[in-house]
């Protein structure tokens, strides 16, 4: 077995002396899809932001493809070239068209020619059913369309790892499925993904591995089927029971 793509060891993160992550260990293999579940405030988003170096870690290490990215002197821009991230609130650039949103990083960061970048962007838009939206501005799109564009924007840089931070939480229920569809397609292509999500049905369906976080601790991890049908930890059981009661599973 080769080395995991992403290794997180003993990760601590505190905000103003309040611990958000307390010694999290997590490995993600290439082509693996890992879902992080847990209540709001359990540390799912913070974990993703740490991996993308949007947050400084307070202890522990993150290793990507064999290189420690939390080591002092690491250039975060170089790390982020290999990692795509999609946010809950899409964060598209409102002053740019869909096409410009997608080609900005390939042209400016990866130094591709504008023509190549646009060709690739149109190809992705076409594949995900947004071919007619290339010239639109984000404000004119539905939430589901904006989030699909955001995913395409992250994919246009050909990242080796994609982080998705509650990407369906801001969407109307009927728009959730179109965003899930695109993620499912990425899984089929072998994309390595870590998702923080509240959609338990989706997690069960798409995840190879499910991790349950509670108060900054990774309490339980296992294959999706086992976590949902036979959770070992009492707190995992309690969390899933409550989710079930609220009709979200």
């Amino acid at each position: 077995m080769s080395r995991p793509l992403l290794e997180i060891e003993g990760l601590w993160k505190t905000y103003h002396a309040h611990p958000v992550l307390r010694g999290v260990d997590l490995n993600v293999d290439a082509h693996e899809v890992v879902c992080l579940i847990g209540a709001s405030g359990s540390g799912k988003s913070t974990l993703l932001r740490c991996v993308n170096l949007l947050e400084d870690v307070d202890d522990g290490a993150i290793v990507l493809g064999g290189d420690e990215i939390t080591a002092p002197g690491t250039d975060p821009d170089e790390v982020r070239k290999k990692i795509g991230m999609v946010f809950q609130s899409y964060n598209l650039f409102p002053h740019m068209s869909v096409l410009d949103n997608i080609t900005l990083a390939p042209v400016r960061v990866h130094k591709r020619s504008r023509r190549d970048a646009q060709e690739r962007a149109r190809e992705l838009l076409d594949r995900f059913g947004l071919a007619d939206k290339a010239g639109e501005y984000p404000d004119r799109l539905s939430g589901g369309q904006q989030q699909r564009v955001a995913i395409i924007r992250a994919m246009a840089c050909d990242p080796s790892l994609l982080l998705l931070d509650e990407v369906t939480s801001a969407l109307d229920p009927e728009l959730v499925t179109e965003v899930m569809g695109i993620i499912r397609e990425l899984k089929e292509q072998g994309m390595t993904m870590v998702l923080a999500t509240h959609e338990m049905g989706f997690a069960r369906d798409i995840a190879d591995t499910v991790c349950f976080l509670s108060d900054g601790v990774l309490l339980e991890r296992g294959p999706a089927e086992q976590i949902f049908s036979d959770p070992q930890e009492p707190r995992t059981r309690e969390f899933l029971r409550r989710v079930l009661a609220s009709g979200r599973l």
Partner: protein
Amino acid sequence: MTAPADTWVKSERQLARERAHRRAGLRHGSIAAASTILCVAVVAVVVLSSPGWPRVHETFFNWGQFTEALPDVLSGFWLNVKIFLIAEPVILVLGLLVALARGLRSPLFFPVRMLAVAYTDVFRGIPTILLVYLVGFGLPALKLQGLPSDPAVLGGLALVLSYGSYVAEVFRAGIDSIHPSQRAAARSLGLSQAQALRFVVLPQAVRRVVPPLLNDFASLQKDTALVAVLGPLEALRQAQIHSADTFNYTPYLAAAVLFIALTVPMARFTDHLAVRAERRRAPGGK
């Protein structure tokens, strides 16, 4: 079942509603017109019949004085316009550079950042007219080689220093108003700090601060008159000369009219931009 849109015939209820709207609109229009005419008439009668009016008319609204002073005041006003047109782009560049300098995070640039903070603190704190005196009379007193001696240039320099600090603060407020998630999204794509600023934050910030910037420039147009204290023959100075000849204040009024003629279109344009920005924000609900 509702009928398709192309076969829609307005209902009797809707037609009655529209008739009522039209009647109300007509009524509102006539009330506004009548009340305006009445108010103007009352004010006119009161002013024109007051005992002091002939003197006011003679001193401030003297047509003969107005036509006599206007050509000189107008030619002086051209200097105000020139000062304004040259100072404005310089102020924009200076303000933007200072605002960017204040945002530099690298420890290497600590002195630059401090300098930018000191500049805005100092020049925003000094009354503009005091700055005009300091630069206009103080700099030439140094007798340094290569310094400009033209009072209009020195006055313009004082205005640039003063307004540059205001405009820097406007730019900084605009940059700060862009939500951190925009920067996070840009950085997550691998853009460097500078690239995120240039391609994502600044374009949005600049669009947002156009109305307050235009407001500052309306103010700058008026303040070009402060250069008068240094002696160049701009509009206020020309009016002063005419007024000193005759002890009549109509030439000042002529200068005032010219300034208003310049600032009012600017103010309307600013309003127009603000309304347009508001309309753009409204439907999407950002």
